């Protein structure tokens, strides 16, 4: 890390120390999704505290209320944030996925309507892409939308929406041209979640908890003006939005993994697993690979900054999802092996409890947001140029 940002680092650290206390003590070091102790109500108040501190949208352009900090400084923020024990960010989908898409495709009215709520931590967003029959095959959208007077009316079902039950709005890819096929005839709609036409059913997972949901639309409505981009061109908008996903926030995720690693080391030292030569090899390999994930993320960012938009995705970016999710899945198994019989037997040790959660929850990492298989298809066809 370059020394240039010493003052900035100190500023963040001081702010965090001053604010991540009191009621927020209980979510310190919580990862968010999949982490049992994470209270969404509190997490929202924390988002608002962050917003007041000026820490939301630090990379956004000034015209949209951001601070337009350079990439390197954004990275510094995420690193210091996690180092200080900052909890997983509930506003992440709005801030890093929807907001850039609004800036790129939204009307001035849409921007003025939605960006402030994201910036203030008062409005939360969920993502409506996957459907029961549109998982890996995202283009197989069945959810329908039609204009009725000055409203869009939506019918259908989305699934795997994180935190829908804690969110205010959802962006939905729907078919607006009846009879259209695959990537054509889609629209990206901004839809309020708290309405009669929307039902949310939690999906119970391997952990026994529910972070994901199914969202049912049964004549749900949104204003006729709330399509993002032109109706019929929803696929383009949806793909652009996914492109924003590999962003600076991956460094925050990375820092979360580093916390999990520290946790594993702590447990291994206490329960004696650290003395087993085979465990030692695996732990060292996991630590080395985790360091490499960080290097890969920094390489992606360097590439992005160098080219600033419009570039073809770089090779290191193509592998990013695959490598972190597989690392974490392997790490989950390592955690279970370090725990030994305790992997299946909950106890009061918070470190052990965290590892148990990671073990189980990490099963989903290689599946959501593009399965391993989809990632390998993309790498082979797009990065290596192999035929379809």
């Amino acid at each position: 890390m370059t020394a240039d940002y010493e003052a900035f680092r100190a500023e963040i650290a001081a702010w965090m120390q001053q604010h991540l206390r009191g009621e927020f003590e209980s979510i310190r070091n919580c990862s968010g999704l999949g982490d049992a102790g994470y209270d969404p109500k509190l997490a929202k108040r924390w988002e608002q505290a962050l917003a007041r501190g000026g820490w939301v949208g630090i990379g956004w352009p000034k015209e949209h209320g951001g601070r337009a900090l350079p990439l390197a400084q954004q990275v510094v923020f995420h690193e210091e944030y996690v180092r200080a024990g900052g909890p997983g960010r509930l506003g992440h989908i709005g801030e890093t996925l929807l907001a850039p898409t609004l800036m790129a495709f939204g009307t001035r009215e849409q921007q003025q309507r939605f960006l402030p709520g994201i910036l203030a931590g008062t409005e939360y967003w969920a993502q409506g892409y996957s459907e029961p029959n549109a998982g890996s095959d995202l283009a197989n959208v069945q959810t329908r939308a039609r204009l009725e007077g000055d409203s869009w009316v939506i019918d259908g079902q989305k699934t795997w929406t994180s935190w829908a039950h804690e969110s205010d709005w959802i962006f939905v890819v729907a078919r607006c041209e009846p009879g259209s096929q695959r990537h054509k005839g889609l629209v990206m709609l901004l839809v309020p979640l708290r309405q009669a036409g929307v039902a949310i059913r939690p999906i119970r997972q391997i952990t026994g908890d529910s972070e994901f949901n199914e969202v049912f639309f049964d004549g749900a409505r949104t204003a006729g003006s709330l399509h993002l981009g032109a109706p019929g061109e929803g696929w383009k908008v949806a793909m652009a939005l996914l492109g924003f996903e590999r962003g600076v926030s991956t460094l925050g995720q990375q820092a979360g993994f580093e916390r999990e690693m520290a946790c594993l080391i702590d447990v291994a030292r206490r329960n004696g697993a650290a003395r087993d030569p085979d465990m030692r090899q695996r732990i060292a390999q996991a630590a080395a690979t985790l360091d490499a994930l960080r290097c890969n993320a920094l390489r992606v960012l360097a590439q992005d900054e160098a080219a600033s938009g419009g570039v073809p995705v770089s090779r290191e970016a193509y592998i990013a999802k695959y490598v972190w999710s597989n690392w974490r899945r392997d790490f989950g198994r390592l955690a279970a092996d370090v725990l030994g019989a305790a992997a299946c037997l909950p106890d009061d040790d918070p470190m052990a409890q965290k590892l148990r959660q990671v073990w189980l929850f990490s099963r989903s990492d290689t599946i959501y947001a593009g399965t391993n298989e989809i990632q390998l298809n993309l790498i082979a066809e797009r990065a290596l140029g192999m035929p379809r």
Partner: protein
Amino acid sequence: MDLKLTEEQRQIAGSVEQLLADASDSARMRRAAFEGEGFDAALWAQIGELGACGLHVPETHGGLGLGVTELVLVAEQLGRRLACVPWLESAVLAGTTIQSLNDAAVAARWLPSLASGERVFTQDIGLLASAPPAVRREGANWRLDGVLAVVPAAMAAQWLLLPVQAGGERLLLAVALDAAGVARQPRVNHDATRPVARVSLKNVQVPEADCLGRGAAVDRALERSRRLTAVVLASELVGVAQQCLDLTVAHLAQRVQFGKPLATFQALKHRCAQMMVTVELARSAVLGAAREFDGDPQEGRSLRLATMARCLADDAARYCTQEAIQLHGGVGFTWEFDPHLYFKRAQAARSWLGTPTGWREQLAAALLDGAAA
């Protein structure tokens, strides 16, 4: 060594398979696991009626007088259905320990109720490290005080085989789990189909008559039992892996993406093929080990056989449970679909009777540390 199965062996496997297809299908297994504290008493009775609790118990003691091959055939079916019965604990683990003491009087007293399934036995295998209970002689009894952090099947069992150290002496005691001073508390277990409990012992009196063995014979019996049970546990894991493969192949056949069944995608087919490779190799290992265990192999050989079965079945179960979740896609990590139950069993089994790493290290010592190659 002839690995052909006899007609009788096929029938035993077939009848258990048939019983469980119905009596331990996903819905019933889940009900037993999540509403029945992991014990399906009705199923246990049915299994007992089949004679499966006394498969390898001599006929003179009420068993069928069969061998390890029969045990592994039954175990594979139980593993495949995650049947909520303490068969491995009682019939195999405790049953083998008792038999391995080679004491006719002990066998005559304890084996009949075990073999019939009338009584459920279990054994303390130290799943979680905890301080050993204090043992004191009091008159004609042994007095026990302490806590056993995790005992498998302790809620369903009537008898617990407990190896203890009484001063300088090694003892194997049978503790009646309904005796005064014994308290049992079920523990939450992610592997809900194999329940465990915390057992606390407060001034528990074990009559001298319930001491099954003492001295070096105890450790010899425990080790023989550990090895044999490891082979049977391996077979359970083959069943776990097989079921994951079957579920996955079925899922891929019906799930359509990009306009075709997933089962037509070559990369997925190869993954299923690799699952089958691990399953069949592990099954071969288990059958081979079982067949040789039927001949009561000597020390060095039984270590090698048990290590083989244990490690390859662990490989198969780990690979297939992980791949089943992955290849089911989004539904793979939901509660509602079965793969996670098998995944949890496969992980839990790693800590039973020695980890695969531990077995390998023991085999390495035998192969590499001797006096001469």
